[in-house]
């Protein structure tokens, strides 16, 4: 079922990130193995998006180490992350409405034949890819504008799969989707896991997290607030970690004196 390899595909060790006077991330730890879906949850402003952007190379980290397959790597720009095999699907999908599905899948890496776009081969590969991922869309030759929100999301995810990435980061893939469309996207996440990809899933929706994630990493105010195994954790426990019900005057005081003592 869940295949866990020896070294994690990606490991964050004590990662910190500051924006001016704001300490967005403090000593964050995260491990993810191939064939594993890790849900990253937390309240607004908990640092989920910042963390994802550090992994994707949008914001380089200030402190800490990022390990890729057990070796420390420097991710300074989006290109570095892509070269390692990290694909990110952002919340705003970054698709062109006026271009058809095939064109969007291959945007920026079109296949060419004697210098001319090879539409036939691109269409064939697009259909192959969508079939492998069991993505059903009406036709690969209609513009993105004609697709539903869920279908656009699946196209965006499929697009990230073209480079055969080892790690796929999905930023709120089910936000603003209907019931059935959400189910389609969750099915797709499971298929990514079956194919041995590591998946980081950011979500506000506990039902989705419980449905597909193997582990849940909770962030609160830019710090780790627990990593749970989904199977043996109740939804209430996760929610209390997110909202900070475990966070009280005593733990805050302990944290303060601990920092002062450093």
């Amino acid at each position, binding site marked *: 079922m869940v295949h866990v390899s020896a070294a994690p595909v990606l490991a964050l060790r004590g990662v910190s990130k500051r924006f001016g006077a704001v300490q967005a991330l403090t000593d964050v730890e995260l491990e993810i193995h191939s064939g594993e879906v890790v849900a990253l949850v937390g309240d607004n402003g908990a640092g989920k998006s910042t963390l994802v952007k550090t992994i994707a190379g949008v914001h380089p980290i200030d402190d800490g180490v990022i390990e890729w397959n057990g070796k420390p790597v420097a991710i300074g720009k*989006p290109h570095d992350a892509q070269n390692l095999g990290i694909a990110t699907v*952002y919340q*705003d*999908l*970054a*698709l*062109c*409405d*006026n*271009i058809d599905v095939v*064109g969007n899948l291959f*945007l*920026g*890496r*079109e296949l*060419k034949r004697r*210098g*001319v*776009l090879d539409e*036939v*081969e691109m*269409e*064939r590969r697009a*259909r192959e890819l969508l*079939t492998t991922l069991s993505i*059903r*869309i*009406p*036709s690969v*030759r*209609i*513009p993105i*504008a*004609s*697709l539903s929100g869920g279908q656009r999301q699946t196209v965006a995810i499929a697009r990230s799969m073209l480079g055969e990435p080892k790690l796929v980061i999905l930023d709120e893939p089910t936000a603003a989707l209907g019931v059935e469309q959400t189910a389609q996207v969750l099915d797709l996440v499971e298929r990514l896991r079956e194919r041995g990809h590591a998946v980081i899933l950011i979500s506000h929706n506990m039902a989705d997290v419980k449905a597909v994630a193997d582990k849940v990493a909770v962030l609160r105010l830019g710090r780790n607030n627990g990593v749970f195994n989904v199977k043996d954790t109740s939804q209430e426990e996760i929610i209390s970690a997110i909202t900070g019900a475990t966070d009280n005057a005593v733990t805050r005081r302990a944290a303060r004196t601990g920092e002062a003592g450093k």
Partner: protein
Amino acid sequence: MSTEHHTSAEEVAQLANPSAPADAIPAVDPRLLVREQGLSGYLSEFGRKMKAGDLGSVPVVIGLIVICGIFQGLNANFLSPENLTNIAITMVATGMMAVGIIFVLLLGEIDLSVGSVSGVSGALFAVMAVTHGVNQWVAILAAIAAGALIGAIHGFFFARIGAPAFAVTLSGLLFWSGAMLQILGSNGTINIDPDGPVGQLTTYFFTDVAAGYGLAAIAVIGYFLASFLDNRRREAAGVPSRPVSEIALRTGLLAVFTFGPAAVFNQYKGLPLAVVLFVLVLVGTDFLLRRTSFGRSIFALGGSVEASRRAGINVTGIRITVFAIAGTFAAVGGLFWASKIAAANQSAGAGDLLMNVIAAAVIGGTSLFGGRGRTWNALLGVMVITSIQYGLALQGIATPIQYMITGAVLLATVVIDSVTRKTQKTAGRA
């Protein structure tokens, strides 16, 4: 009840049967409204597209037929081979500039300087070739290169500095018309050599009847072969292909629209060189836009700049190149203009030229909102604009009225474009 059960059992059996090849990879999703085979399929798809606001070229073609009908009714000379040939030659100058501006419109931007740049190009050519006696071909190349450079400068200020394109090119509008007056100097008007390459642009005809028909035949056969071979590859790769009937129908339509004009031209002086060059430019730019990565990037930028950037497209480079292309075609248009009036003068590139260029692009179906259009739109649009001008001129209607009518036509087109966009949004076809 029992029948229902029976059906589902059958379906299960069919699904379980691995030898059922049709279910392996469905060619098209059943939810997609696909065209049925044959003529009725075409008609039903056509109706569906109209309802969804996917009007395409239909309003323009109808408009053109109405315009021709009205003017023919007013003056029987309107549809004469002579008048049609004159319209075809005159439209090339505006059409060339419209091709350039379509590239800019595809980005969702605008270039207001094309008129002035065309004036600079004509003046530069005339001063170099006539006043300074430079080789005419060198002067042509210099004029076109100047247009490209001017466009690239506009592009630089827009793409690199981040100034709004309309403001940059509005500055260019004034700056380059000043530059043109400066280049022309005190002479005001410089007559060009009517037998030189520029002079011949609008006056040369392939008088041999075979030229027009031969070119039409090459176009039709070439189109048919290209479609046929593409279809063979599609079938081999197992992706949906066009039915042969569709290829035949399209080829037939193309034959009507190539042999028809060829016959008209041959009844007067023959096939005009200007028209041949214009068609070559249209074929070339259409290929560039729809069959190369560069063209795909232009459409992507018109759809979503952010998506293009994330896809690794060189946004700045593409933008500068597109403005350089617009400048290049403005310069080419300027040379055709100089050829038409056999001179470079102070009024070149002024008046309603800019409006006509933009109107031609938009009337032809290029969206002002970016990401939608083809360079062939320039042909349709410029035919409408030039027909109106010639028709009104035949009636002896003065310039003020012509301006007002052209302005109204442009407004109508922009309204159609905006409404189309809205309908397409609601029909999910933006």
